């Protein structure tokens, strides 16, 4: 009876250990995926930052060119005899 109980106990421990191992594997999988998600987010942030910086620089250049054209047009409009 004791042997049966011992064997049952051993089997339960084995099952528990196996379950534990499964849980650990599950946890490791989850953590691995979360890390991958984290790395993706970091990369995404870096690329988005660089793209936004380039877009910002482009917009600044366009703004300056537009200001220059505006100044030229205003000077031309103030000096109509030059175009007559």
């Amino acid at each position: 009876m004791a042997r049966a109980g011992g064997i049952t106990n051993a089997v339960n421990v084995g099952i528990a250990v196996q379950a534990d191992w499964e849980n650990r594997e599950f946890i490791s999988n989850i953590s691995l995926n979360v890390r991958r998600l984290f790395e993706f987010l970091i990369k995404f942030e870096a690329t988005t930052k660089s793209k936004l910086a380039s877009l910002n620089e482009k917009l600044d250049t366009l703004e300056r060119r537009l200001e220059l054209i505006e100044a030229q047009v205003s000077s031309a409009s103030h000096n109509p005899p030059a175009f007559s």
Partner: protein
Amino acid sequence: MQHLQSEGPAAMTFDEASMERSKSFMKALLELKNLRPQLYSAAEYCEKSYLHNEQKQMVLDNLKDYAVRALVNAVDHLGTVAYKLTDLFEQQTVDASSVELKISCLNQHLQTCQAYTDKEGLKQQQLFTVIPRHHKHYVLPKLDTVNKKSQSNGQIRREAGQKDVQAKPFPLGTSASKTLSWHLASNSKATPEGDLYTSTTSVRDSTSSATASGVFYLPDEVATSSMPPSAARIEPSNRAADSGVALHALGITRRDAAENAKSLSQYRSFDNVGRREISRPPVRSKSMLSALFTKHKSAKIKLGHPA
């Protein structure tokens, strides 16, 4: 910007499409933001249920399932947000490129207008500019030293008492070069002016010793009647010692105009002989000048005339 309107009333305009995109991005971002408290609340519930419930394996299994779904949901939300953000960024890049193109067109228009204005301004300025043009007789070199000497000799001759002869002295000086060069330039036409000039050279050759002054005197009668007006301006390259000598050399007397005419005709006929020889004045003008001046110098040396 409004080009999509032409496709149909149901079609969205460019502005509306961009608004929709931005709205969906904001929505996805909000959902991702709301996912955090949901995951926190789900984790608390699972912890309490595992602690208080007797069927812990079932709770654990449910928890595992929920964790997987939550993770998938989070990944899905993140992907949606990333996609919408990238789409929005591309749209903004396209808008910036189109604006850059329009600005380049404006710049090109402006540069064209500027170039045209500059061109027109230069054209107007060129029309108003006065380009100086000089005639030959201003360009040829002056004969200052010779003219000064001849002028002084002419003055001396006047003082010697030449009152009877009302001659027309041709004043040598600054205008001498002009007339001489003018004659040289006009010699190519083979006018009587040139003939008379050549006649003076031929006569000079024969009577080089007699001529020593820089003033060539002619009586008025002869000058007005027989000789052409330009002949009176003839400038002798050699000097005459006396006006009478010069007149005598040319065969011109004071009283008889006909004799003067005859002499002139003889002079001309005499000239005609040598005329053929001298027929290309413009080409040899400078050499003639140099020849005349050298002869003048030789005459001066012979006579021992003071300068």
